[in-house]
């Protein structure tokens, strides 16, 4: 079932949107064996595509080394970052890649169960995903003795989220799977040792898992020919905002922001928000920067703002988002986001003082180190980067902010 009114463009890209014969990834995996799979992954230098960028091979090796009767493969499909929708496209149009990635992970690490944590907002995909899983069972790609291999049993279940952004954080996601409030855990211990039900668990982003079959079939070295030294391969970018052709684009890492803007047909661009609400806002003067883990890192979200936009209003929208989505467990995040939002409202009304704003910036930096999970650690990014990069617009043009644009 496709979402209403959705028209797909023809997809082209180096890795994920390149040609692939369903089933070839797992066949190759069975042929070369567990150790070679891990070596191939290490060779590819694939890093987690959700945004944090942890090396996938390292994560898998840690789980492979963990001793336990039971291990789990969790696919993080709780894509909640504002401006991100690449996983929606992967799950709707390339489910075979995602499921096969999980299957390969299951085989490599000796797990018998894979779980897809699908965000509640994507419930409409449930039917098509489940029918695909049924088909895989019929083809003996899931179930017992997969492809005639005794002792290779793997099943995939889909679990729905219920509208909580914080559940995209891996330990909050695990809490949610276990039937609790989606509150992040202290790390360490990491999920690779103590994950779902206390068992070693791999939590990978949809896009990471979808990359695995391609890497096995075409080789880690081939994968490394795309991208930069530290950011290998290509990335799906979800492009939205002020441009002619919003959508999902596969581009190699290391693409310059200004080149991306040209590809998507963006004109009169004032700023680009890279990495969603929790990412940072990049002004025109820095459009030469590249999209890569080592420069402007992103889990895929690219939001484009043109000259007519009011940056303060955008910032307010981001902070309202974080105030609502903070789980409330730790104080820096629960209280800090509210304070930052109040500061923005003061700027809007023209009753701020710079002394107060400087204190708030300090608070933001405190949140970055003192918050328990990634939500509170990254929510001040937009506040700090927008107030810094657009201070002229916000403070100088009319003497106070909020009245100089739409």
């Amino acid at each position, binding site marked *: 079932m496709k979402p*209403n009114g959705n028209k797909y463009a023809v997809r082209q890209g180096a890795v994920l949107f390149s040609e692939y014969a369903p089933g070839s990834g797992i066949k190759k995996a069975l042929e070369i064996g567990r150790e070679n799979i891990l070596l191939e992954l290490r060779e590819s230098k694939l890093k987690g595509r959700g945004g944090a960028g942890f090396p996938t091979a390292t994560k898998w090796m840690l789980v492979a080394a963990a001793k336990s009767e039971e291990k789990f493969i969790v696919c993080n499909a709780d894509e909640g970052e504002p*401006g991100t929708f690449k996983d929606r496209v992967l799950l709707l149009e390339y489910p075979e890649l995602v499921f096969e990635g999980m299957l390969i992970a299951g085989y490599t690490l000796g797990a018998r169960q894979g779980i897809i944590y699908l965000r509640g*907002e*994507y419930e409409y995909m449930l039917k098509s995903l489940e029918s695909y899983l049924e088909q895989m069972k019929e083809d003996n790609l899931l179930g017992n003795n997969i492809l005639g291999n005794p002792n290779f049993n793997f099943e995939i279940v889909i679990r729905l989220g*219920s*509208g909580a952004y914080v559940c995209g954080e891996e330990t909050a996601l695990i809490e*949610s799977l276990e039937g609790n409030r989606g509150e992040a855990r202290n790390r360490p211990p990491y999920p690779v040792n103590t994950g779902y039900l206390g068992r070693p668990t791999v939590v990978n982003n949809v896009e990471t898992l979808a990359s695995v079959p391609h890497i096995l079939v075409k080789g880690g070295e081939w994968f490394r020919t795309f991208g930069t030294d530290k950011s290998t391969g290509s990335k799906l970018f979800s492009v939205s905002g002020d441009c002619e052709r919003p959508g999902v684009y596969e581009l190699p890492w290391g693409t310059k922001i200004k080149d991306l803007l040209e590809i998507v047909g963006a004109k009169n661009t004032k700023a680009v928000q890279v990495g969603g609400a929790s990412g940072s806002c990049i002004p025109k003067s820095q459009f030469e920067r590249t999209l890569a883990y080592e420069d402007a890192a992103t889990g895929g979200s690219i939001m484009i*703002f043109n000259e007519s936009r009011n940056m303060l209003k955008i910032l307010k929208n981001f902070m309202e988002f974080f105030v609502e989505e903070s789980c409330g467990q730790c104080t820096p995040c629960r209280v800090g986001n509210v304070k930052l939002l109040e500061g923005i409202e003061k700027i809007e009304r023209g009753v701020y003082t710079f002394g107060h704003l400087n204190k708030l910036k300090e608070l933001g930096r405190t949140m970055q180190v003192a918050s328990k999970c990634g939500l509170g650690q990254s929510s001040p990014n937009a506040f700090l980067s927008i107030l810094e990069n657009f201070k002229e617009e916000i403070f100088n043009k009319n003497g106070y902010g909020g009245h100089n644009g739409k």
Partner: protein
Amino acid sequence: MLVLEKNSLTEEVESLVEFYGTERSALLPILQAVQRKHKYVSDFVQQEIARLLDIHPVEVYSVVSFYAFLHSEPQGRNIVRLCQTIACDLAGKEAVARAVERELGITFGQTTKDKRITLEYANCLGMCDQGPAMIVNDRVYTHLTPEKAINILNEIK
């Protein structure tokens, strides 16, 4: 609540527990199933789930109150969620929101008197390239205009 009603709810919860199991990890799927059918999880149902999973009712309530898509108060027959996050906002969410409020005669967070529609805001629905977007129950509508949104809402029974 009538005894008969209670009995049928208990039976319903029992069959859900039978299907999903009595593990703690079954709690969310059970709650979601109740939410899907009744549009909210009543105090009584929460207590029944707690009894059958052998946990304290407050544990169940803590989970219900955490998730945006689970409700503990009665809602309308259809839940309409308009995305309020930045991409949809830039694409014209405000005009859609005001039009919908005028047409239904309620504000966000409220339910129409005939219990037909509950109106809510949602955070990022993952339709940023096609905004403004809204979800009606579990169906997504994109590229909304005020008129298009009203037409969709008028179709809902």
